[in-house]
């Protein structure tokens, strides 16, 4: 029987050695710094067409986990499989299947226009010529970008974030990794992007979305399922329905407060 799980992460552990300056190396060369655990034995899987909230406070390991999935970071232990293949065996396949959207405006070339940036990244995803132009025009239209030919540094934060979404979608990947994608955006732009994400990308196009955020109260209603990270450990993996059932909540009730309580309480209950 075929495995329906599109993303599988098993036992992901990542520790970082603190970086030391020359002064620290010379001054305390006998002291070995202790590694900082960013992810501790994190396992989960995800099917196609669901929006998973990767929730946790700052420093919980959300970005680290997304970077492991995006092949930018190698885990110390554990394996990731996306559509049945691992980044170690076939990194190009994995990269073709993921779109990474961050709130890092600096990941674009500021002296180029939005369109020039996106055309460049489209070429790196293997798209060029009329097909690339058609795809780009379609996405610019979907995201309602008014002036894609304005220089990136002259664009508003909202437009820059739309460019980030469009870059992540250029090659139409089935898996979207979103790292705080709504940070620094005004309410109407947030609402527009959230609607587009939920109705268009997840419901219609059946993309799997992993949305990392610390703004639980605002983004929890968007998600079908929740992965909560606390100090690098997965402390919750549950759907909205199962949470409501377990905690006997009204079907219409919001579960934001419950998630916040779980993240703020001691102990882990995956």
């Amino acid at each position: 029987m075929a495995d329906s799980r599109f993303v599988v992460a098993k036992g992901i552990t990542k520790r970082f050695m603190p970086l030391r300056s020359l002064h620290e190396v010379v001054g305390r060369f006998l002291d070995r710094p202790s590694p900082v655990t960013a992810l501790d034995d994190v396992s989960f899987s995800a099917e196609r067409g669901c929006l998973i909230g990767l929730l946790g406070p700052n420093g919980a390991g959300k970005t680290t986990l997304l970077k492991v999935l995006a092949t930018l970071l190698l885990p110390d232990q554990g394996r990731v499989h996306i559509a049945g293949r691992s980044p170690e065996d076939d990194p190009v396949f994995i990269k073709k299947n993921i779109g990474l959207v961050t709130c890092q405006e600096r990941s674009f070339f500021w002296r180029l226009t939005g369109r020039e940036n996106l055309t460049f990244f489209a070429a790196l995803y293997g798209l060029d010529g009329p097909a690339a132009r058609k795809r780009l025009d379609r996405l610019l239209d979907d995201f309602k970008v008014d002036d894609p030919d304005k220089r990136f540094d002259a664009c508003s934060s909202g437009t820059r974030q739309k460019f980030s979404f469009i870059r992540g979608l250029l090659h139409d990947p089935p898996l979207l990794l979103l790292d705080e994608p709504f940070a620094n955006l005004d309410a109407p732009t947030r609402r527009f992007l959230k609607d587009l994400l939920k109705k268009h990308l997840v419901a219609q196009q059946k993309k799997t979305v992993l949305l990392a955020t610390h703004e639980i109260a605002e983004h929890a209603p968007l998600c079908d399922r929740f992965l909560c990270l606390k100090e690098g450990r997965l402390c919750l993996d549950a759907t909205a329905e199962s949470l409501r059932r377990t905690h006997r909540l009204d079907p219409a009730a919001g579960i934001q407060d419950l998630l916040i309580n779980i993240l703020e309480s001691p102990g882990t209950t995956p």
Partner: protein
Amino acid sequence: MKKLLAFLKKDFLQESSYRWPLVFGIFGVLMTTLIYYFIDRLFGERVAGPLEDLGVSYFGYVLVGLAFFSYVGFGLGSFSDQIQREQTQGTLEALLVTPTGLTVILLSMGIWNFLIATLDLLIYAGLGLFLFHIDFSRTNVPSLLVIWTLSVSSFSALGILSASFTLIYKRGNPVSWVLSQAEGLLGGVYFPIAVLPAWLQFLAHFLPITYAIRALQKAVYQGTSLAGLKAELLPLLAFCIILLPASFAVFNRAVQKARRDGTLAQY
């Protein structure tokens, strides 16, 4: 190839968004050339002795050395500079998350700088020919092409090693220091290595630029054929054979280490 052209277009758009660098680059080449021209007028005859074999003036000698050194220096430094630039701009991770091979990314990053360096090289040659009336008529073109190929390959390998260091340690790059300072002093760029003490001449033999400059001077001013350049071309070929695969292996290891340490985007 399409990805390489995309990098080239992106770099062109980025560089042409600034008004003055290209103009002042050309102006800089002219100024440097003039400095050595007047040094030659003042002291040229005193250094003529070691140059007798080549049958060239000091200015003629240094012009070829400078043009070549600036070419390979600019070109090979470009890998390291570009990596640092992408790290500080914050675009390196965005490039690495695309399904583009590391080698393609690295080589594409350097292509714009190589084009600019080639333009500088042509300006040096044009100034020498038309303004200072240097005699290039004996130049052996096939020899020149082989020297160019071997030099670009071996210096690119050094550039990639330098970029690997930048990826891991960010600053304080010893490879870059060797390339820019030690090679300038020991490689025969500004003066023939015959004027150096014996122990420095010995060290010079471990640098590819020593062979490249000597071969170039012979090919340009004496019209020496490939057979006559065996003593210079064989060591250059050996540098290529050793350094090229080693540099790509080291760069791959450096990227893996940066991915393991989580320092890809740090600078």
